[in-house]
């Protein structure tokens, strides 16, 4: 799984209330949510983001509410991947579960500027910054989580397990 896109750079503690403000939580499809993604910190984002772009942020990305609407809005906006120094744990689970790729890589975040072109290879676990030419290695997902990612999210993963009568 290889992806390439332009970096949108944000700071620490980007919370789910700014990723998708609660006033829009009366809808739940990725397309509707995407129109308001990041609206309160970056009003231009929803209009200017291009399919395949990459969000690059600091510590504790996605902190706050458990709303799955947050990764759904990001995915609906066409963002290919989020790279952060660290993720809030519910956001981390939600992203894996809905099939939004996320990577923890503090070094890559430190050296990425707004507008940089990044290439991400999920399988190899690498991030390359085309401006600096530097490549960063991320720590691999545990095999079990990689299984959810490869299945396309928790629902198809669970369907497969139920179908195979592994747990039920």
């Amino acid at each position, binding site marked *: 799984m290889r992806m390439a896109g332009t970096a949108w750079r944000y700071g620490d503690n980007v919370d789910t209330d700014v990723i998708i403000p609660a*006033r829009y939580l009366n809808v739940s499809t990725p397309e509707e949510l995407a129109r308001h993604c990041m609206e309160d910190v970056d009003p231009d984002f929803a209009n200017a983001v291009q399919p395949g772009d990459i969000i690059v942020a600091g510590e504790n990305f996605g902190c706050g509410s458990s709303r799955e609407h947050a990764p759904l809005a990001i995915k609906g906006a066409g963002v290919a991947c989020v790279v952060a120094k660290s993720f809030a744990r519910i956001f981390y689970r939600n992203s894996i579960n809905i099939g939004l790729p996320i990577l923890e890589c503090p070094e890559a975040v430190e050296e990425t500027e707004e507008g940089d072109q990044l290439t991400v290879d999920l399988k190899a676990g690498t991030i390359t910054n085309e401006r600096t030419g530097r490549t960063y290695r991320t720590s691999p997902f545990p095999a079990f989580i990689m299984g959810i990612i490869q299945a396309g999210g928790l629902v198809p993963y669970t369907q497969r397990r139920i179908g195979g009568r592994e747990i039920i």
Partner: protein
Amino acid sequence: MGHTLAEKIIAVHLVDGEGNVASDNQIEVWPGDLVEVAVDVVLSNDITAPIAIREFEKLGVERVFDPNRVVMVADHFAPNKDIKSAEQCLTMRQFARVQGLPHHFDVGRMGIEHVLLPEQGLVVPGDIVVGADSHTCTYGALGAFATGMGSTDIAVAMATGRVWLRVPETIRIVYHGQLQPWVGGKDLILYTIGQIGVGGALYKAIEFAGPVVDGLSMAGRFTMANMAIEAGGKVGLFAVDDVTCAYVGGRASRPYRVYQMDADAAYAQVLEIDVSQIEPQVAFPHLPENVRPVSQAGDVRIDQAVIGSCTNGRLEDLRVAADVLRGRQVHSDVRCIIIPGSQQVYLDALREGLIEIFVEAGAAVSTPTCGPCLGGHMGVLAAGERAVSTTNRNFRGRMGHPESEVYLVGPAIAAASAVAGRIAGPEKMLL
């Protein structure tokens, strides 16, 4: 080596390869283990249930794993704030009817979920509870491993009764010393978040301990456990003691077993906090870690005061607010909105005369709802407006316009500020 409370509870909920649940104490788990566990309660609300129901239906499963263990509460945008919210509540109501869920709580019988579930005895000590709401960690006050997840995790839990967990490291925070007047659970947790930061417990469990929390009422403990997530925590646990058992007795919907942390448990960090010098705390915009003692808040004029929420919407919280508001008037520039956390809290407050005190003081009293906490309804802020609030988050735009501001406080400071028209402690006006 011994185990933390989180490890003890997870160990007795482990599911093996054949789908059997380990109910004895023979199996050990350690931080970092990825495990599958059986859950006791699966919770969702009117915002998160519609996505969970959509994903549940994709799974191709006809029935939830156990109708008695699947709880749904219409509390966020209920009573319905607009047509789309009405449709979300309807989706949840129809699912609850089709599935025959006895614990679907609708307007007139509901409460804010994390006030309601303990009150109804639906969560008991030793449980594993997963909820599609980040403040599910509130039930840690009962000695239950309770944690927030997203809608897809909840969909799978509704179908299978199982979730995967990474066994968390635990931070133990020990509180000792003598509490100052007007200082409660809210001030202790705000002070703690100020010390460790909004990412200070990321991916970790917190154990709250020491003589000060042993002396707290259940309301104070619920408030502290509730905000474990604001430090990034997975769960905020209290040991089960006489106070817990007195609360659970007469409410518990099921028999329960009590698990305790071992004296030689291994902790990622142990923090000692002397509470003796802690004043009532105020968290300034736009992060819960931006705390200052109220004496150093400066001159902050306010437009609104909100008293309620899953953090501070219990009867004890309303009593504190009433102690301050009794015989006084809310400042003419302030809208004071008071929201009992459940129908039962409302009724108890009514019978104690608290509602009369609030209305006479010029406050609005609302039916239970999460409403203003997340900028939904019942008190949304305009650009440039400021609120003191007993809720749990002061992120940018949390209570309304992105240029509005929220200052997090306990009920005493919220009520005193409502009277003063600016952030103020209650001690001066009570002299």
